[in-house]
């Protein structure tokens, strides 16, 4: 028998009840909700959780988390005073603005969660689909709740009651081996790779059973657990395949040792019901996405270092109050300015102290905007076909783009491909004059080794990324590749090589765009742009200025 899916608020209440029963075991809750009445109502209910609650923010430092020397108290008292960190005493941590949680903090919290040190409520206020809780945390939090689009009218009852009975029952709840196997199989069928998910589902099923007063996990307990734990993790739409069902039918057959026969009959939850329970709880748009065969993880973030690591220290920003934790630099002038107005008062308090009175609260630290430099890699087709038709025009376009790049202080690099290979004409530079000179001297003629051009671009892009720049690629070509990577003139192989290179580039998350300089738009290039996951801009008789605007818009987007 299959339970009907819960309505949103009932689901929210169930999540609360589960958190009351076993908050630490479940890891916690990923709450995706913009501020609003529904979230306010939910948060109010969260306050009744039995453990101590602490709020933390994504910018929290290690001293606060792990504790450390309390400098001002130590100096004041003349003996060592250590302050305990939040993680040491926390029962339930509430992380606000969780979508902005940096990977470092996520890893620290993850380690604490793994050690069963606390439960975490991650308040994810992300507006866009790609603003999300870091995956390292999402993986460890058992429950998920989305309160967006939930009107206040839907918020009806509140939870009440005593959870002591359920908590007392929890250690004695038996999880039959068949249910455990079904939970694992269901996770695999939904394409959930991480093994934390089925473990958390087991915890949730136990808590659910304890909540319902069952001393053995019942089918409906497992079903609810699946609904709450698996729905947001699903990555594939399970196919109703025969072999899978056969497997599950085989699964309960060997008599499980620890459950007696009468119970195990009852325990036979067909795995499809669990699967259906998860599917029923999937958000509607996600279901459509999954059905279309699109992975929701297509937009994997491109690693942490690249965007934040500037090769220069960046533009200084106004300094702000902070703590000297070994990584910050003190802004001496601002610190003195902050302390100045208080000097007479402080001097009056401590007359024997002759020097400047500076308290920890006066410390101002320097901040820099660490934007990494952008590198625009031009990959220009100088083959015979292009040279004849429009090389001059392409050169004009590149020159305009160069001027723009110069104005934005971007770096540029120039790669030309013709004949049998590609040549790096200009390594990343900021020199406009040099680029123009090289471009003007660009010879034309020969075949179109598109793949070689893309490969050269990728090498430049990788090197640039290692130096903390953010590379983007602009490919200007007029048509089909006809020279393969190994230099042979084979149209089919050349096209294949180009597509493979494009796929690699796309996998490295290098933004790219394709500018078709041919007389009429070429389908092959359009396809290439799709593989590169970048825009395709045909330039049929377009002037260089229009092209420059298009490129600027495409790369800024």
């Amino acid at each position, binding site marked *: 028998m299959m339970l009907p899916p819960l309505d949103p608020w009932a689901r929210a209440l169930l999540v609360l009840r589960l958190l009351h029963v076993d*908050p630490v075991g479940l890891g916690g809750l990923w709450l995706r909700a913009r501020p609003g009445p529904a979230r306010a109502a939910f948060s109010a209910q969260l306050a009744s959780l039995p453990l101590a609650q602490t709020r933390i923010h994504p910018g929290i430092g290690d001293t606060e988390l792990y504790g450390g020397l309390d400098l001002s108290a130590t100096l004041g008292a003349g003996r060592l005073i250590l302050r305990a960190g939040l993680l040491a005493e926390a029962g339930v941590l509430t992380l606000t603005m969780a979508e902005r949680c940096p990977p470092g903090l996520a890893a620290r919290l993850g380690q604490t969660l793994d050690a*069963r040190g606390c439960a975490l409520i991650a308040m994810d206020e992300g507006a866009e689909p790609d603003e999300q809780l870091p*995956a*390292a945390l999402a993986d460890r939090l058992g429950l998920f709740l989305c309160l967006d689009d939930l009107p206040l009218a839907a918020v009806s009852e509140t939870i009440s009651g005593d959870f002591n009975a359920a*908590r007392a029952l929890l250690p004695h709840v038996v999880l039959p081996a068949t249910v455990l196997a079904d939970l*694992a*199989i269901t996770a695999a069928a939904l394409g959930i790779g991480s093994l934390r*998910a089925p473990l958390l589902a087991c915890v949730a099923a136990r808590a659910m059973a304890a909540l319902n007063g069952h001393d053995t996990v019942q089918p409906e307990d497992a079903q609810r657990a699946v609904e709450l734990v698996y729905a947001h993790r699903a990555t594939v739409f399970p196919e109703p395949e025969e072999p899978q069902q056969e497997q599950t039918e085989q699964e309960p057959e060997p008599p499980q040792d620890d459950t007696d026969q009468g119970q195990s009959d009852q325990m036979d939850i067909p795995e499809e019901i669990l699967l259906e329970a998860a599917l029923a709880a999937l958000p509607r748009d996600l279901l459509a996405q999954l059905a279309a065969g699109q992975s929701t993880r297509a937009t994997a973030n491109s690693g942490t270092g690249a965007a934040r690591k500037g090769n220069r220290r960046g533009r200084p920003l106004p300094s702000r109050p902070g703590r000297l934790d070994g*990584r910050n630099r003190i802004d001496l002038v601002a610190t003195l300015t902050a302390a100045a107005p208080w000097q007479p008062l402080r001097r009056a308090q401590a007359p024997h102290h002759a020097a400047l009175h500076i308290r920890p609260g006066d410390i101002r630290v320097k901040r820099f905007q660490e934007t990494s430099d952008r590198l625009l890699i031009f990959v220009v087709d100088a083959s015979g076909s292009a040279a004849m038709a429009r090389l001059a025009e392409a050169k004009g376009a590149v020159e305009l783009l160069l001027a723009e790049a110069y104005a934005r202080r971007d770096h540029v690099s120039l790669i030309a491909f013709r004949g049998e290979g590609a040549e790096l004409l200009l390594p990343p530079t900021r020199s406009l004059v040099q680029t123009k000179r090289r471009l003007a001297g660009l010879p034309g003629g020969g075949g179109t080794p598109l793949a070689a051009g893309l490969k050269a671009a990728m090498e430049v892009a990788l090197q640039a990324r290692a130096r903390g720049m953010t590379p983007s690629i602009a490919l200007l070509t007029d048509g089909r590749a006809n020279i393969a990577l190994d230099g042979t003139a084979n149209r089919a192989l050349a096209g294949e*090589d180009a597509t493979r290179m494009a796929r690699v580039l796309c996998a490295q998350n290098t933004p790219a765009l394709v500018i078709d300089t041919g007389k009429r738009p070429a389908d092959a290039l359009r396809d290439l742009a799709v593989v590169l996951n970048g825009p395709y801009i045909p330039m049929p008789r377009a002037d260089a200025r229009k092209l420059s605007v298009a490129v600027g818009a495409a790369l800024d987007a």
Partner: protein
Amino acid sequence: MTQHIVSGAFPFSAIVGQDEMKQAMILTAIDPGIGGVLVFGDRGTGKSTAVRALAALLPPIQAVEGCPVNSASPEQCPDWAEIGSKNVISRPTPVIDLPLGVTEDRVVGALDIERALTRGEKAFEPGLLARANRGYLYIDEVNLLEDHIVDLLLDVAQSGENVVEREGLSIRHPARFVLVGSGNPEEGELRPQLLDRFGLSVEVTSPKNIDARVEVIKRRDAYENDNGPFMQHWRLQDSALRQRIVAAKQALPLLKTPDSTLRDCAELCVALGADGLRGELTLLRAARAQAAFDGDAVVSRVHLSAVAPMALRHRLRRDPLDEAGSATRVARAVDDLFGPQRAAAE
């Protein structure tokens, strides 16, 4: 609110599958000179669990009682440590956790603030590097480690000595340790210099096999909810494994390495275009450890091919067009070079 008492780390033997990762850990336990293990892979595949379980497999070391750098004999103790005792005791091999948010002071050691404040003495408080001497240094999420800490580690790992010149202190002490790291490549790349410091590198993926997955969940569930009997059962297996490791450690110096094996090593590295000679050296050491573990007297191609992927995977030039990944490239080269022998062995 877990009322169950969970004691001890998850046992190493109870980890389902992930054979390559376990093999790498065992090899590094047999011969720390291999230079540590890097475990990279998906979330929730038991990376951290395996590393934490490693501690139980390591044979104890002999060290001076109370010595902060685990010196083997009293005369090796640094003079700043002011150790009263001259007893050499047996203590477990240190496995030191290097947390992500660690400060430079904690890593290299710093002025002992407590003594400075309370007694006005200038004393050195040793850091994690001191404690990790002669042991293992474990970094979870190693790819997220701050750059300045990575620089520090590289420097010390290179020289085997930690030099502290700060706050009026001038101190040096030995810091020879084996790096063990784990991380998820999705969250960031590892710097090539640091990558090179790891002797072995393994990639882990979530098990695709349903039965294996069910088994993982079962064991973990038993670990958490039925801890006593579970630990009792697996501890026996762990101690059997540890005895095997100790035996292999003793057998290691007696192993014979024929010239043909050395030649094979070199040929394999040349065929793969591995940078530098560290590849050959690590490959050979790992193969010797493998032979010792298998109880063989002579290091042969069988052992080489068993350890080649993990010893060489991270030393290859990246070929962006080879979608198969470097593990497959190593396996392919092994097959090309020692094909027939390998087939005969299997």
